[in-house]
């Protein structure tokens, strides 16, 4: 049972807050790795061909690369840690306790990565080409190593695999989706590297060189165009059955017109990804002469939207868990759900001072239970608003709905006894302005509650 206080962020909701920071970070951190490969490969080719113009371009590109990845990239990474710690401390605590020394390894790798990034940029023109190229490959190798480490922790959340039973850390790290996720992220990184390179290439003053670099950078999107469907299919096969079912339903309902949020996001990802590929093919690849900086920014923004939508899907399919089969998305342990109906929750929660429910404090307790169990995903009247979702429901229906939340497969079960369930139902009933229960209603709850030890 989560004993942490809950942060009330208002209408934005926890999901959006994490989503905004995570999307920016994922986009830039993927660029930090794929862009490293782009720099190393392109510099290698340019040195071999003695192509001074491209080397000069790479110097400018690496300046942009360094300024973006070591500042916003690095800090939004810390930002994810902070925001998840604030919105779901139980989740971050689980990950830290499980993977403390993996994080420590990641920290060492990150430290070296940042240092080499600085060496690489600041040594342009000051060291031999051979050493500079060595730094480029070294940077990419270390940056990729950071993915190798963090990928185990990220994939663990959706597919902890055998860890749930064995609690063996290596089962958790090399979990079922580890390898397909590593491959798909690597392929996506090359695309993102290409997208950013298209942006900086479009600023090259020399026309011929600009056209050549736009054409070259657009090629970096091609591997993902051909490989991603296969890698994603592989990834799909490693997902838990319930998640795979959810995705299949999402895809199957595309033609029916009754589109779930998941379906809409999958459609958005597909359409925007194809748009990026087509525009890159017809623009910088085939017709670099007519391609402008404005178009390149449009591709960059589309890429950011796709990243955001993909992150949303990853979060969405993990519901009702944050660590699949172990910890619910509201920070409550799956294990704790078993006896909560008999024991109740308010008596054991340190942040709810009311230890028994009375007619006077019922709605206050209901609001506190809302904070504890619902607010991780819902708001009162903003994002995933309960005011909208429960609109038109009466209090008895809300009570019954709370009894069966888990049948949706995307929500954790309500934890608490009947009095607590009624307290929440009454609070939500007030929120949606449902008529009060008739005094002689058969479903009127017992109003006295004695906590059990």
């Amino acid at each position: 049972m989560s004993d942490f206080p809950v942060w009330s962020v208002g209408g934005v909701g926890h999901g959006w807050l994490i989503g905004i920071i995570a999307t920016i970070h994922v986009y830039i951190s993927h660029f930090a790795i794929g862009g490293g490969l782009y720099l190393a490969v392109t510099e290698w080719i340019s040195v071999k061909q003695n192509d001074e113009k491209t080397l000069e371009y790479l110097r400018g590109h690496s300046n942009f690369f360094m300024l973006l990845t070591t500042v916003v990239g690095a800090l939004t990474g810390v930002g994810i840690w902070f925001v998840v710690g604030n919105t779901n401390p139980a989740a971050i605590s689980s990950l830290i306790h499980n993977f403390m020394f993996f994080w420590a390894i990641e920290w060492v790798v990150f430290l070296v990565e940042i240092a080499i990034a600085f060496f690489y940029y600041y040594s342009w023109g000051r060291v031999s080409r051979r050493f500079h190229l060595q730094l480029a490959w070294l940077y990419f190798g270390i940056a990729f190593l950071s993915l190798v480490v963090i990928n185990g922790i990220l994939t663990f959340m959706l597919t902890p695999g055998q860890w749930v039973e064995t609690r063996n850390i290596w089962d958790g790290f090399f979990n079922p989706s580890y390898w397909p996720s590593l491959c798909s992220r690597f392929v996506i990184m090359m695309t993102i590297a290409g997208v950013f390179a298209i942006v900086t290439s479009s600023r090259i003053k020399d026309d011929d060189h600009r056209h050549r670099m736009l054409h070259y950078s657009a090629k970096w999107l091609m591997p993902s165009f051909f490989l991603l469907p296969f890698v994603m299919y592989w990834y799909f096969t490693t997902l838990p059955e319930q998640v795979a079912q959810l995705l299949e339903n999402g895809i199957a309902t595309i033609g029916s017109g009754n589109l779930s949020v998941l379906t809409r996001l999958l459609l958005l990802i597909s359409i925007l990804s194809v748009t990026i590929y087509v525009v890159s093919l017809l623009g910088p690849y085939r017709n670099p002469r007519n391609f402008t900086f404005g178009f390149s920014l449009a591709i960059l923004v589309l890429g950011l939207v796709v990243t955001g939508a993909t992150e949303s899907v990853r979060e969405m399919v993990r519901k009702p868990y944050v660590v699949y089969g172990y910890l619910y998305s509201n920070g409550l342990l799956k294990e704790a759900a078993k006896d909560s109906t008999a024991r109740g929750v308010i008596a054991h929660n340190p942040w709810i001072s009311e230890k028994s429910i009375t007619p006077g404090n019922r709605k206050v307790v209901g609001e506190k239970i809302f904070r504890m169990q619902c607010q991780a995903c819902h708001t009162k009247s903003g994002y995933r608003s309960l005011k909208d979702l429960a609109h038109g429901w009466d209090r008895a229906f809300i009570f019954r709905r709370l009894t069966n939340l888990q049948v949706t497969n995307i929500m954790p079960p309500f934890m608490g006894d009947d009095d607590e369930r009624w307290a929440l139902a009454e609070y939500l009933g007030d929120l949606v302005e449902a008529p009060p229960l008739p005094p002689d209603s058969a479903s009127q709850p017992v109003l006295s509650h004695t906590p059990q030890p």
Partner: protein
Amino acid sequence: MHDLPIPRPDPIATPGDIGLILFLLYLTFFLHIVIMNGMLGSLFLATVSELLSRLVGDGSSRTRHEHLAEKLGHIIPFMISLTVTFGIAPLLFVQGLYGQFFYTSSVLMAWVWLSVILLIIIGYYGVYLYTRGFERYRNRRYVFLTVSLVMFAVVAFIYVNNLTLMQTPQKWLDIYTRTGGSGWHWNIDEATLLPRYLHFTLSAVAVAGLFVVVLGLRARHADEATATFMMRWGAWWFLAASVLQTGVGIWFFYSIPEHLRAIFWSEEGAARTIFVSAHVLFVAGAAFVLLAAFRKPSPFFAWTGIAATLAGIAMKIINRDQLRQAYLRDADWTVEQVRTQPQTDVITIFFVVLLLGSGVLVWAIRKYRREVKSS
């Protein structure tokens, strides 16, 4: 047993011995705090020099201040990066031991705590704008530096807020009830907050003063006059901050509840020995630095003074954690309660990676220096 709202420890055991994690916490926090002090203090000294270069002094004094501000401006971005990176590790280890305290205080001031990220990004880019626009924004560049200084000063204040709040769970329930979990709490009613903040920021100025002394030492062979200016200017700031620190230190000490600060004179445990040793080292360090700067410009004296001061800071870091543990004992919690289940294999890999990573950095630094020198 108390009725404090302290969350139960995570059901998953901490994957390393308490002693090992405390050691890593002290080591990485020491590196973080020394670099952070150097960064924040250098930002302050750069701002002062930038303002002085346009406000007062004759031509040569102006040029020296401008030169110092520019030089510091070029170094500060690296320091920011290292401060952030070396800040990650102690934050990780602190969560393994004191997680339920740290998360709770962070949630209670969630918006404030999260704002740290944005403030650092603004401050970071501010310094880059200053150095890269040094000539282009000649008349306005001080604005970038001042904004950065304010950002990082606020970040330090937020950190002190959170880290004092995490050790006083007695206040939590009232804050949560009062704020409704809005995450806008500032821990300003904490008696130790202001002296603790000043203690850290003055320490930053002192450490940056030492750093400027080092820059002076390194410039001796190139330009004697500039080197002397830097060594004296740095030593003055080191001295001024240290003198003020004496007063602030006493204020900080007496703002700590009496039964908690008693650990520093109790014969039980090592806190008293460490406390006294730290102050002896600070006094000795100050004497050597001042001797090097004003009497005998000897690198030996300067480095001895710097080494003594750094050793003093290391001891203070242990004292800081001992005080935190004393605070938490008031809440019937001791670090010995942390359940551990060491992941020996992963820990071994960590140390191997640490060794390899250090090797790569040493290789890169040496080769870079050799190549730059030969070019």
